[in-house]
């Protein structure tokens, strides 16, 4: 869905507020707790990162812009846990389980196992199909308006670009969210001239690159 999260190309938010290198820290203890909880839940496989991202996309636009990053995480975790029945609203309010234990059905991240999870997971999957495009190919991105989750930003739709790399065959986020299947797809890095994306009058020294799954791409009719 094309909601508030798809920010690329919007204006009016004011200047960036740079933060010195000390910024790579938590700004309050609760932020660390949320991060830890999010990682423990992803490990449990109650849901995956794509579902988590899509849940954030469904935050109302006013909240999406008003809340901080970890506030968004907090609300998304609670809402998704309630939606998926990890606990009931009564249980959340009481802060105590009234029905049973989740550790029988879901994986529990322990102190012993946690170190292994600090290496990012791999979303590449084997498959028999060859990639449809090659490095150097011209492609046109689709005008895609998905009633669900997609990773092709609005600014990069219906634009002609060039494949500059093939990144392997990856879990397809659109499919994970819409029907819970990995449906792996070839992933490409596509480069667009800035003028193709932002118009003739834009800075000609700029190019934009996105990582695009094969279903987002087709061959331009005239090339």
């Amino acid at each position, binding site marked *: 869905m094309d909601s508030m999260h798809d920010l690329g190309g919007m204006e009016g938010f004011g200047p960036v507020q740079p933060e010195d*290198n000390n910024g790579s820290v938590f700004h309050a203890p609760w932020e660390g707790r949320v991060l830890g909880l999010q990682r423990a839940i992803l490990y*449990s496989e109650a849901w995956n990162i794509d579902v988590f991202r899509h849940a954030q996309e469904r935050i109302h636009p006013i909240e999406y812009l008003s809340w901080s990053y970890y506030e968004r995480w907090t*609300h998304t975790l609670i809402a998704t*846990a309630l939606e998926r029945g990890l606990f009931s609203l009564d249980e959340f309010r009481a802060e105590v389980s009234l029905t049973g234990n989740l550790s029988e059905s879901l994986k529990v991240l322990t*102190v012993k196992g946690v170190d292994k999870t*600090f290496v990012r997971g791999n979303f590449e999957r084997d498959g028999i199909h060859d990639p449809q495009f090659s490095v150097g190919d011209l492609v046109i991105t689709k005008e895609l308006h998905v009633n669900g989750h997609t990773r092709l930003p609005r600014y990069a739709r219906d634009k002609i670009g060039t494949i500059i790399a093939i990144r392997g065959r990856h879990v397809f986020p659109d499919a994970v969210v819409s029907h819970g299947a990995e449906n792996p797809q070839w992933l490409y890095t596509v480069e667009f001239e800035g003028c193709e994306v932002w118009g003739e009058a834009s800075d000609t*020294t700029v190019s934009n690159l*996105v990582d695009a799954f094969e279903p987002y791409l087709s061959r331009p009719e005239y090339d």
Partner: protein
Amino acid sequence: MSGSDHHDHSHGEESILTDIQKRVKALESILVSKGLVERATIDQIIEHFENKVGPHVGARVVARAWIDQEFKRALLEDATKAINSQSDFPQVGQHLIAIENNDSLHNVVVCTLCSCYPWDVLGLPPVWYKSAPYRSRIVSDPRSVLKEFGLELSEAKKIRVWDSTAETRYLVIPQRPVFLGVKSESELAKCVTRDSMIGTGKVSPLSEDNVNG
């Protein structure tokens, strides 16, 4: 998740805990009570992100690439494999991609759709990286945004803006500035700032204050 309660964050609280602190505490408590979460694990995760990973990891990778041409070649070919081949670096996940600045090209990284970031090598993302002003405007007007960071690029320099829209992650290899002179790898690493590895900042002559929080 409704639109109606966003005005209520900052007032009407009865305890000293803010609304968000209460919610996080309640979430942790119910998940502990459900047997899904162990508090000690959360402690361990926080410890990891507060003290173990951070821009100093990426800085060492960059410094080694500056010094060791063979490592740099391998890094640009497959950054995950190159880093994991070095026994003194922490292991990093798949599909880390190193992109190199040079005299005619500057690279800068964003995630317009959420806030994807190379945590393995840079640790926690800074607030601005996750903010609407950066995510909205770096793709359409990078030169002006970089100026706001104090990075004035020559008008002739090409800018590539990489939007992390999938599970690939990008690490910028900044140019080694002439002013750094001859230094050891660990001295050089101290000059590689986090922002220089995102593409929004300069390499600094000013030692480790810029790297370790």
